[in-house]
């Protein structure tokens, strides 16, 4: 245990996700031994980020304005929505540069253990967006785990009545990998989702 303010700093840092007590201590001492303006800058950014960054009123992605840059971009196709769990997932899909449509961030997945039901997710907002007839396809890109699958099932049941094309991201073998190293669940999914070879 350190005295007073140092321990407080370590405790606060340790509250962040992915940072254990040892990392917290390392960061605390790094901060102590760094030039003053660095710390001021960090403090400023921390305050600024809470002040400036909001969630997009349309899709729920992080944004410095009322709507995010993706929702504002007229070049993106306005008739496809990709539904993801977190804003982080938007960044991951954007990296692929394969998808040129719009997003909808749910803010998590259905998980009773964590106290998250459909009402805690931005599902109502999604249904409102879909009431606009221009949307032709919804791509469900929730995580391929139990909670993500449960959320996908829930959404697909809601959406089937709307006569919109609903698709789910494929699961299967990683690109560039070896078949022999794939675990049996992944390999089993890849078998389930196999495709006819195009002639």
């Amino acid at each position, binding site marked *: 245990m350190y005295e007073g303010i140092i321990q407080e700093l370590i405790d606060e840092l340790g509250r962040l996700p992915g940072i254990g007590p040892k990392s917290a201590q390392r960061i605390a001492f790094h901060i102590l031994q760094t030039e003053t303006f660095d710390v001021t800058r960090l403090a400023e950014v921390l305050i600024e980020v809470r002040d400036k960054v909001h969630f997009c009123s349309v899709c729920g992605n992080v944004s410095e304005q009322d709507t995010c840059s993706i929702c504002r971009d007229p070049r993106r196709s306005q008739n496809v929505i990709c539904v993801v769990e977190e804003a982080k997932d938007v960044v991951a899909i954007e990296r692929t540069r394969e998808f040129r449509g719009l997003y909808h961030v749910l803010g998590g997945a*259905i*998980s*009773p*253990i964590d*106290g998250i*039901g*459909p*009402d805690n997710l931005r599902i109502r907002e999604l249904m409102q967006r879909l009431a606009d007839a221009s949307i032709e396809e919804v791509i469900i890109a929730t995580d391929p785990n*139990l*909670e993500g*699958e*449960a959320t996908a*099932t*829930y959404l697909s*049941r809601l959406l089937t009545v709307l006569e919109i094309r609903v698709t789910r991201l494929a699961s299967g073998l990683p690109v560039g990998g070896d078949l022999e190293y794939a*675990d*049996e*669940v992944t390999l*089993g999914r890849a078998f389930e989702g196999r495709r006819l070879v195009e002639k």
Partner: protein
Amino acid sequence: MLVRHLSLTDFRNYSAAEVALQPGANLFVGSNGQGKTNLVEALGYLSTLGSHRVSSDQALIRSTTQAAIIRARLEHQGREVLVEVQINKSEANRAQVNRSMVKIREIPRFFSSVLFAPEDLALVRGDPSVRRKFLDQLLVARTPRLAGVASDYDRVLRQRNTLLKSARNSGVKANQLSTLEIWDDRLVALGSEIIAERDALVARLRPHVEAAYLAVAGADHSPRLMSRLSILSSNSTDDDTADADEALVATDSPVIRADIESDFRAALVRLRRQELDRGITLCGPHRDDVVFQLNGLPAKGYASHGESWSFALALKIASADLLRVDSTSGDPVVILDDVFAELDQARRTRLAAAVADYEQVLITAAVFDDVPPALAAHTVHISAGTIVDPAADA
């Protein structure tokens, strides 16, 4: 398969131990509390990733140290495989095969063993959970993929139970029931697979158990195994003796997968009210049992001590036989932990004969004379965590 060499670091009472093992029988002798069982427990850990004595890994790590290491040099039909597992106090456990990192759950693929222990009597006399664990361990040993199915099922069960509880606490609302259906789907899909696999396993075990019981008991008491499925039971009491006959599935009529799914769904509908009242899932593989009978009577409650032991041994021999039949890397290693002290002379001899033709048999005993001479070939003496092997000194 064979264990050629076992070395332990900071495992239980051993700060460091090196044991060379031979094909055939290996006998560890020593007084109580010297560390015989710890040696075989370490090997058992490699095939089940758990101890047969404790549910938490913490007890396996020698006190005051941070990690225990189990390292075994195995031989699969002439090919050497080095398997290492590090059990950590505060981090995730790690594993290596031939010095390259693998996921820890891959380890049981490289080593299969069947461990007989005094605790096995609970298979016959204990709670249904003991029998479910026995079947599930054997399922995973035969089909590793099912470990994933079982852990997914457990997670769905926890999610569903939490949802039922919150529905109960807040009064049932229509929208909560709509998400319940989603968890029902997953529960039925995963649960039906487990039920079908367990039932198929029980059917496959049956002839092996019959043969093994006759071999161990020396008498035919017509042993039978029957699945008891909670999805077929109309009542939901926790008392497993109530309505003993109605949910039994005779092993000669294997259950059909499609029937299981529809029965499971029907049971969920039937029990919905009760489930909402109590806030738990009342049917599914987590509440199933397998019933053992001798001469038409349930072994639990009716069988004598000797008969119960014969049944427990027959189950273990049968599971070793099954693993042997399916194995591509040789016989499972048979481990007999302190069992001879529990048996009369005739059963000792017959058990020894039943396991004698396995590639490798490891035995622990406090009293040398308890062990039939046929199994006393390579003897290692254990005293206060040190290992004295006359063969190695020679």
